[in-house]
């Protein structure tokens, strides 16, 4: 294990002038051979890696309802505000805590495009609300944004100028939409050498691509100018086989010494302290 670890160490790679670890950023549908390492100059691999496709998979949301909070500024609170969560069942008008206004969920609707996207991900939901205060009322449609799970609604239609919305204590309705949890990050990688495809694999968390002494891990997925990209962690596997052999020997040795050699009772009749 120590030998393998030393052979795979940063210093051993430096001596061999081989990159030990680096990152590649590849746009979907394009390829790159440039590896960014901690060296001043990027390293060029003798092959290029093409990101054929990348995507995220989601669990279906466990909840479809939004969570409602009435938020009021409070200088005495640790965060500078107080948030009271309250239940807003569909169709029933409920008071907005800390105010004389009322809220009613009219409908949970989905934006144009349907309920699920191509990868089974639930589309961001939209909620239609009726807000009332005394005889006045208004209907609001809240469409969730991908980036932020929270939507904020100030009750200006109901209060006009009665409330200074910057004044401490002015209430705000905050809604948190159900969050979808990522099931997996996936990408299809193809390795190109001299213009020919020499390897291809769908990689995901816990399942990297291995080629020519390097493992390629999916580190990050994102969008740049509307085009998906992936950041790949590239790690040398130098010494790994030796380390794994060391693991097997260590485990085998411990099992042999602890469980097999002395029997199940561990040499109960042996002198006290016999290991």
């Amino acid at each position, binding site marked *: 294990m120590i030998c393998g*670890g030393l052979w795979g160490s940063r210093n051993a790679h430096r001596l061999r002038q081989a990159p030990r*670890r680096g990152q590649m950023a590849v746009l979907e549908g394009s390829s790159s051979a440039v590896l960014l390492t901690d060296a001043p100059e990027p390293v060029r691999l003798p092959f290029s890696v093409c990101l054929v496709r990348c995507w995220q998979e989601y*669990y279906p949301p466990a909840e479809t309802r939004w969570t409602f909070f009435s938020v009021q500024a409070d200088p005495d609170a640790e965060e500078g505000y107080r948030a009271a969560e309250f239940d807003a069942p569909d169709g029933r008008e409920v008071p907005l805590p800390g105010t004389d206004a009322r809220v009613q969920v009219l409908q949970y609707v989905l934006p144009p495009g349907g309920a699920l996207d191509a990868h089974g991900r639930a589309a961001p939901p939209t909620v239609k609300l009726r807000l009332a205060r005394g005889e006045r009322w208004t209907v609001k449609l809240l469409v969730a944004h991908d980036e932020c799970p929270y939507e904020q609604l100030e009750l200006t239609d109901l209060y006009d100028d009665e409330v200074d919305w910057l004044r401490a204590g002015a209430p705000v309705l905050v809604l948190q939409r159900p969050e979808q*949890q*990522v*099931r*997996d*990050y996936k990408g299809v990688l193809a390795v190109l050498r001299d213009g020919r495809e020499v390897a291809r694999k769908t990689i*995901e*968390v*816990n*399942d*990297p691509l291995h080629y020519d002494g390097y*493992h390629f*891990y999916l580190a990050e997925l994102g969008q740049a100018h509307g085009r998906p990209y992936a950041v790949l*962690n590239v*790690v040398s596997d130098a010494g*790994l086989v030796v*380390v*794994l052999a060391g*693991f097997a020997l*260590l*485990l085998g040795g*411990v*099992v042999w010494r*602890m*469980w097999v050699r*002395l029997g*199940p*009772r*561990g040499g*109960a009749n042996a*002198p*006290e*302290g*016999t*290991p």
Partner: protein
Amino acid sequence: MIAALALKPTPLGALMLTALALHVLALPAWAVRRAMGQAVFAAGFVAAAAAVVLRTVQTGQPPMQNLFEVFLLLGAMMFPLSLLGRRALGVGAEALDAALAAAVLFPPALVFSAAAQPLPPALQSPLFVPHVAAYLLAYVILAKAGALAAALVVAGDRTGEGKLVSRAQAVRTLVRAALPLLTAGLLLGAVWGKLAWGDWWNWDPKELWSLASWLAFVAYLHVPPGVAARRPRLIGAIVVLGAALILITLLWANLAQRFAGLHSYA
């Protein structure tokens, strides 16, 4: 992760509370009659095992994802390992097993949040179950070894009744039984680390505390026999230290903000 002390008004909560109550009741039952204590301990195991099965069915995944599930599983493992310990290893003190199981079942029954989360991508690996299971089995065995070693340190050695081994020998036998499992957990974690993060060792706080506890038990087993025979209390203290390091690995490394690392989902 942690809620205030509260009952869980669900079938799972009721099962866990029943299991906790039965494990606690096993202690006075033992004082009356050994067979009665054993029967109540067995009934507590049935309730804990039922809770594990129910949780598995409810979440559709192995109950090893968070502290709530891990502690529930640890509590359910105690009875079968206690039986095995007596029959195969000659280690008694089953009342201690029931007490440990009660202590382990208390947090999931009344403190830890039972909120279920889908398995994050990093935990979706064939190594998830063997890695965690090896550690949990080792931890249950070493919890008993640690408790017996604490008794050894405080009250000294005690000869075993009938076919049972002495207290000092029981500690050694239990550590020997657990070390391969602890080693397997550590090495499987290293292999998994390579597959998930790119390196088989990442200097993560949980990895480090885990290695520290492994080293403590390895050090205990490397004490020369003569020294161990002359200073059983002092040597027993190494096992107590190892058990304390396990507590840090299992609890503190997850709950204390200062140890946030790659295992933060645990």
